[in-house]
């Protein structure tokens, strides 16, 4: 688990070239943050942050969890799953391997079941 090779080298390059995507990954690698907090820390507008978050989630480099603020409203908090990207040149092509942090099955089971209830 935790790695795959079905991402193209240019996709990774394109993603990490983006300043905001890089900041989001860096900020969320130390603690889980909301989109508002990310907008503040990265100095970007909310729509910009959300667009990057969507893209990062598509590539499964970021995880989200539901949280409840003191007023009882639900909001999402994001944390980085990306650990390492390896790009290997072999046999006339690039092979990209993405290592992600494992959320283990027990975490996921509990989280999903809470979602179902």
């Amino acid at each position, binding site marked *: 688990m935790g790695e795959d090779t079905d991402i193209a080298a240019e996709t990774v390059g394109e993603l990490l070239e983006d300043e905001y995507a890089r900041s989001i990954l860096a900020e969320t690698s130390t603690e889980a943050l909301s989109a508002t907090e990310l907008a503040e820390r990265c100095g970007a507008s909310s729509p910009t942050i959300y667009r990057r978050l969507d893209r990062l989630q598509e590539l499964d480099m970021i995880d989200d969890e539901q949280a409840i603020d003191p007023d009882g409203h639900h909001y999402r908090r994001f944390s980085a799953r990306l650990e390492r990207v390896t790009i290997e040149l072999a046999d006339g092509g690039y092979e990209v391997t993405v290592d992600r942090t494992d959320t283990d099955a027990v*975490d*996921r089971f*509990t989280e*999903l079941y809470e*979602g*179902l209830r």
Partner: protein
Amino acid sequence: MTTPELTVEGGAAVTVALAILLALGIIALSAWIAAVAYRGYRQSGDRSVLLLAVGIALTATVPTTARIALPTAGVSSLPTTAAAVAVQFAGLVAILSAIYGRPAGVDARLVAGATTGSLVVFAAPMAAVRATDLGPSTAMTAVSSVTAVLGGFVAVQAYRGYRRYDRRPMLLLAVGLALLTVGAFGAITAVEWLPAVSDAAAVGTVWTVELLGLVAILQSLRVD
């Protein structure tokens, strides 16, 4: 809903009444669980949650209902058990892929794999009985052991979720899954191997274990 016509051999009127109550209880609980699970999915809209909901429906509600509906329709006990176990197998695979898979969720390969596995689980015991001198009882025990192992594993994961997060629903889910898989296997094995157990008592034991499992799962979906 049509009223099922239950014929339990070797049972007195009281036993038949009890069996009908058990059967209706199981059908009602199954429908209730399916409805609650579906509502849960509608609220979250997450595909992994959908996979989990489908898994729980296939593991808990469909096999228990099948164990009632198929014999009522005149299917004998080995194909009934094989069908229930096959559906349960698909359900457990769905739960496992929901909790181990990536959020991308359901793909064709997964569905194909689960379907093929289920068909094998369904066909193997019947083929084994026809081709060898294996008795139907042994075949039933053997096929049930498949989901007992898989279900036991999923139940342990749920129990670990309870220990780690102190979430009571996960404990109830673990108990429910264990009863429906390991418990049903235990009941089937016990009544097949114990001498002098009437058909009615055998069916009643399996249904009772399953009813308790369904109660636990329904509770797990409802408690806070």
